[in-house]
């Protein structure tokens, strides 16, 4: 019994490490309230985008209902999603299955 539980631990850790190493997407969803100029400003402030890139993502949100604004390790993705939520943009995380 002790041996079995001892062997089980590395499996859990491996699974957790795989989870952390996965690539996660930060997706901003459209809402009918926030102004286009406000969304552009938030993208510039949070991600350091230039005006052209910020507008491109804002238009994707507005016209397609969503835009992937960042992808990378889960921990940073969570931080970005939290910051976007502080600015009252609807941000969700999605696992990138292609990685």
């Amino acid at each position: 019994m002790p041996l079995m539980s001892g062997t089980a631990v590395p499996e859990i850790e491996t699974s957790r490490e795989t989870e952390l190493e996965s690539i996660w997407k930060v997706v901003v969803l459209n809402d009918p309230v926030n102004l286009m100029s406000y969304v552009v400003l938030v993208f510039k402030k949070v991600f350091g985008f230039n005006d052209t890139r910020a507008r491109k993502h804002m238009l994707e949100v507005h016209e397609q209902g969503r835009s992937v604004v960042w992808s990378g390790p889960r921990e940073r993705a969570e931080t970005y999603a939290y910051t976007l939520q502080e600015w009252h943009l609807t941000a969700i995380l999605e696992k990138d299955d292609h990685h």
Partner: protein
Amino acid sequence: MTTIEIGLNREVVLPLLDILHPVMERLEHEAALALPVVDDDDEELADIWRNGLLHTQTDDCSTLMSLFDDRFRESGIVRIEVEQADRVLRALSAVRLKVRETLLTHVPDSALEGTDFDFAGLTDPDRTGFAVYMLFATLQEVIIQHLDQ
């Protein structure tokens, strides 16, 4: 220190601020937006997010309402230090989201996003809510234009 000064019509704005009280009270306890699912299994993380977001939101809203102080009531001028601008912008967004949820429940999303909105077709309460909603949108636009300069 740079200050953004915006002149407003007190006779129009002060009554609108009065109807905001219940909205501001709700924002002390509720996030302006529904929280996204961070991790289905991690209630502790969800609590940390919820509390942190609510704390920021409360601070932001407090900064916003401090702009409409006795000096504003005398002069009709809102003064925003540039260092406060982020907090004020976030609070304006939070208030508009909550106004949309509580005072503009009869107005479809398409009307809020479109330009062909029939303001005259609204009931009186909806019209007042819409006036607050538009006033705060205008304030956001003016602040953003100033920051872009």
